[in-house]
């Protein structure tokens, strides 16, 4: 993901990636730092990574999007180039209350990249477009006045 995180968070993810490449696990000190920076999302995101819940979907055109299977089994869409997730926590805690950097699904995308736990799946361009637009119908989008 190319979206911008605060420098401290980016540095932490880099350290996690480096440590995981060298030892195949994340040291306790980095886990504590992860919880300090990302709060309660950290443990939930690690669970999602452990369960291999993150899949990167790629279409023949080269466009990609992430799909994260939530703890309830519902799939959420996370964009590849910026912070956006279709889950309610992103709408409430990130967008509305502005008290979280990201939701657990976006953090799981970052962590799955750092630990190489991200699965990859080829889909058609049409399938990718419909995943990018997930839940559009539920939101009842109107027409331009």
């Amino acid at each position, binding site marked *: 993901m*190319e979206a911008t995180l605060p420098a401290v968070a980016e540095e932490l993810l880099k350290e996690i990636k480096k440590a995981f490449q060298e030892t195949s696990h994340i040291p306790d000190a980095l886990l504590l730092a992860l919880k300090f920076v990302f709060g309660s999302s950290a443990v939930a995101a690690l669970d999602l990574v452990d369960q291999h819940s993150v899949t990167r979907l790629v*279409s023949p*055109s*080269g*466009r990609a*999007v992430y799909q994260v299977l939530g703890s309830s089994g519902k799939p959420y869409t996370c*964009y*590849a*180039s*910026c*912070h*956006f997730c*279709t889950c309610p926590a*992103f*709408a409430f805690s990130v*967008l*509305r209350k*502005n008290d979280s950097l990201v939701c657990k699904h976006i953090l799981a995308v970052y962590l799955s990249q750092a630990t190489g736990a991200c699965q990859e799946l080829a889909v058609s*361009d*049409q399938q*990718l*477009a*419909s995943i*990018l*637009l997930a839940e*559009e119908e539920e*939101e*009842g*989008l*109107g*027409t*331009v*006045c």
Partner: protein
Amino acid sequence: MSAALRRALGAAGPGPAPTPALVLGPAGSGRSALLFRAALGGPRALFLAPRALQRLPGARRGESDPRGLQRIQFLYPPSLRELLRLLASLPQSLPGPPALLLLDGLEQYLAGCPGPQAAARLSALLVDTAAYFTGRLGADPQGSAPCCQLVASMQVSGETAAEDHLGVLQRYFPAQCWLCPAPAAASGQEDCGGDRVFRARLSQPGAADQEWKLGFSLDGEMRVSPVPWGRAEDPGAADTDTDRAAAAGK
């Protein structure tokens, strides 16, 4: 600030790395003209708007540059739903990646957004589409542009529900260009030779603000002149918050 927008305003020298930019201003402040000027001055551009332009904004009536126009592809998704579908499926419908993605009239699409998540989705999909085009441009060794820049415009009047989403939009558009009516005496309108004068102030993280004057003559032509550095820094001449409130109150 978006390099395309700086170029449209005649900025000299290299600027900071291009970031998605939002042009904000009241009705008649030249938002469409500025976007159109950015499209004309650069490489291949994709210009999106809710409806077809009645005439070329910022140009003299009846005047157009056919060569510049050939580099612009115009698409008019009439609703938010159509716009989202278009952005999600653009890779299949375009012959090649544009280096500039422009969206005019964002407020009209936001009027159909029921909440902040829908506004975020539209903004994120615009950013994601531009990022995809950047990847395609980077993969083309013959390509003339290093990345696809995103610039959107939005009318602010202080009265529309769409403006409730400004905080969300600013997450996805780190650069903002505010267009504010310029007081005649302070702006030196005669220099611009126009009947209506606006100040354009570009702000983005990590760079000093820059300011220009936009003058619109009776025949509709837009003229741009830079505001000297010292003057832009003068709090009396560039009281941004006050200007934004004044613009929003129009």
